[in-house]
């Protein structure tokens, strides 16, 4: 696909250059004997305009390759205006030459076609730029594309009927009685696009609005200024000039925003990556347990997390959580939650009290309505006894020594950051020698295959029980293989955090 695009871009660039050379050659072939000096100015302006168009086209190709942004209508506009410039240049050369009468007709017919097609692409470019999704606009788009076909068809009919323009037997072009009618479609479409710009103005900066308006008003002003000099035509060239301006103002300013967003995401990604402990094997000197954890974001930044640390010499804390919401805001909320939990647990609060404290802190000023589902387990490595708190999180899985994996069901407390002063319930548990705990996020249970079906609880157990080994790293690798086999060619849609601990006892 990309290769094809590259090839297409190269062919069109070469075509641009060939047309520029062709117009210059034509000047010499046809000769300038009977061409008025003012026409020569027009031809010169057309050639310079074409060169500008060529450069703009190459810039767009580079941008398309680099950023992949949606500028295909901008590119289409450039190509149409480029063609209009070429045809305009030719029209001045062939005018008034009886031998070239037929060329004069088709050149002008094609030239007339450029205006409605330009207007259509301007409309499409504007709609894509504004990201308009209103259904009324969509219906209008259908109408406008139909109108473009009609306008083109009318220009073909004109060759025989001559209502827009005619070329006499002497080879002289003259306007027809309905000349002005030929502008109706273009003006209607362009004005409709500007109305859309005005409607969507609150999403735009002032300079962006002005730029859109210039597309219409610069050619009009240029037309007015040149009205008094007979035969001079700078219309298409001025459109190309405005396209250059639009490209610079609209697209370059978008790049800046995009560059900022990319930089923000990279910073958040670094913060998030640094925040997840990865010191495996964790405390190899401690023979009472083994632990492994893994985080796989769906995009650059994610809102799932895991954490583990020794609270004191005997108590190991394990945390797995998921902040609802996406983007950098959710990532920052996640990092904050993770640190608050660690700080509360480290100060000696039991898990349910720690959650109460963290919840109230997270509720404070949470206007975005984020919430956090989290599982916290604190286990005494001497006795294997511990407490867990489940604040709205998925059901953890345990495996008793030598047994199968199974879910642990109990009544969950409310997710955190939802309601102030929520009370959390501590669930006591006891791990025997060889028992394992496996905690995950809904990226596992809701992994989605190509039929849009969730992996679900049963398949989780099936995957885990395929190799019921009590080795944290191997068990997590097995889970990842199972997930990847299930989602196959579909894209991982949700973040995934996994934490696995096996208790070996004293």
């Amino acid at each position: 696909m990309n290769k094809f695009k590259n090839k297409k871009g190269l062919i069109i660039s070469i075509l641009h250059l060939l047309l520029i050379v062709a117009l210059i050659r034509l000047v010499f072939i046809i000769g300038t004997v009977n061409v008025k000096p003012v026409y020569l100015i027009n031809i010169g302006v057309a050639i310079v305009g074409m060169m500008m168009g060529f450069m703009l086209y190459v810039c767009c190709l580079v941008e398309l390759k680099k950023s992949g942004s949606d500028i295909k209508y901008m590119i289409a506009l450039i190509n149409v205006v480029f063609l209009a410039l070429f045809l305009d240049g030719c029209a001045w050369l062939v005018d008034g030459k009886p031998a070239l009468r037929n060329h004069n007709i088709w050149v002008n017919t094609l030239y007339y076609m450029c205006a409605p097609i330009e207007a259509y692409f301007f409309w499409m470019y504007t709609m894509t730029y504004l990201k308009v999704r209103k259904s009324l606009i969509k219906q209008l788009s259908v109408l406008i594309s139909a109108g473009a076909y009609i306008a083109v068809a009318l220009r073909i009919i004109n060759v025989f009927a001559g209502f827009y323009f005619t070329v006499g037997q002497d080879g002289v072009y003259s306007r027809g009685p309905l000349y002005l009618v030929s502008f109706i479609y273009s003006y209607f479409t362009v004005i409709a696009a500007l109305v859309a710009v005005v409607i969507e103005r609150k999403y735009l900066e002032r300079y962006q609005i002005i730029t859109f308006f210039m597309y219409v008003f610069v050619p009009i002003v240029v037309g007015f200024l040149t009205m008094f000099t007979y035969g001079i035509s700078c219309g298409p060239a001025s459109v190309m000039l405005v396209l250059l301006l639009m490209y610079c103002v609209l697209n370059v300013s978008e790049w800046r925003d995009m560059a900022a967003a990319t930089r923000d995401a990279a910073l958040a990604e670094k913060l998030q990556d640094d925040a997840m402990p990865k010191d495996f094997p964790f405390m190899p000197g401690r023979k009472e347990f083994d632990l492994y954890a893994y985080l796989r974001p769906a995009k650059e930044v994610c809102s799932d997390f895991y954490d583990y640390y020794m609270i004191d010499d005997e108590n190991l804390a394990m945390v797995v959580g998921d902040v609802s919401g996406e983007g950098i805001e959710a990532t920052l909320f996640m990092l904050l939650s993770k640190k608050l939990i660690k700080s509360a647990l480290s100060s000696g609060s039991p898990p349910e009290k720690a959650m109460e404290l963290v919840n109230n802190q997270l509720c404070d000023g949470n206007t975005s309505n984020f919430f956090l589902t989290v599982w916290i387990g604190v286990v005494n490595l001497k006795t294997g006894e511990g407490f867990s708190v489940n604040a709205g999180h998925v059901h953890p899985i345990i495996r008793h020594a030598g047994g199968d994996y199974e879910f642990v069901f109990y009544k969950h407390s409310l997710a955190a950051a939802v309601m102030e002063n929520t009370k959390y319930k501590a669930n006591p548990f006891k791990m025997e020698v060889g028992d394992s705990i496996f905690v995950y996020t809904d990226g596992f249970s809701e992994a989605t295959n190509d039929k849009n079906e969730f992996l679900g609880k049963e398949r989780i157990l099936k995957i885990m029980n395929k190799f019921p080994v009590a080795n944290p790293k191997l068990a997590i690798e097995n889970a990842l293989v199972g997930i990847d086999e299930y989602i196959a060619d579909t894209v991982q849609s949700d973040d995934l955090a996994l934490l696995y601990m096996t208790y070996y006892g004293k």
Partner: protein
Amino acid sequence: MLNIKKEKKEGEIKISLEGRLDTATSAQLDIEVQSSLDNVEKLIFDLSGLEYISSAGLRVFLSAQKIMNKKGSIIVQNASEDVKDIFEMTGFSELFTIE
């Protein structure tokens, strides 16, 4: 896809949902809910046609709850077992009356 149907009576509104309430559709529901809570004391969600609710969907319920908390109540009706499970698991079942 999510179909949203609203029936408004004196001081009461019933919002029926059909389809999937996920990241893609929750923004649409949020707008619908936020714009229809004036003078409403009783907000009823009929979830008989709801197949799935994601955490983004739960956030819509959460923001509705924050508004209704001050002036009335939220009732959730006819939720499927799967949807009920999600309410139970996340503890959101504590926030509303689930019928």
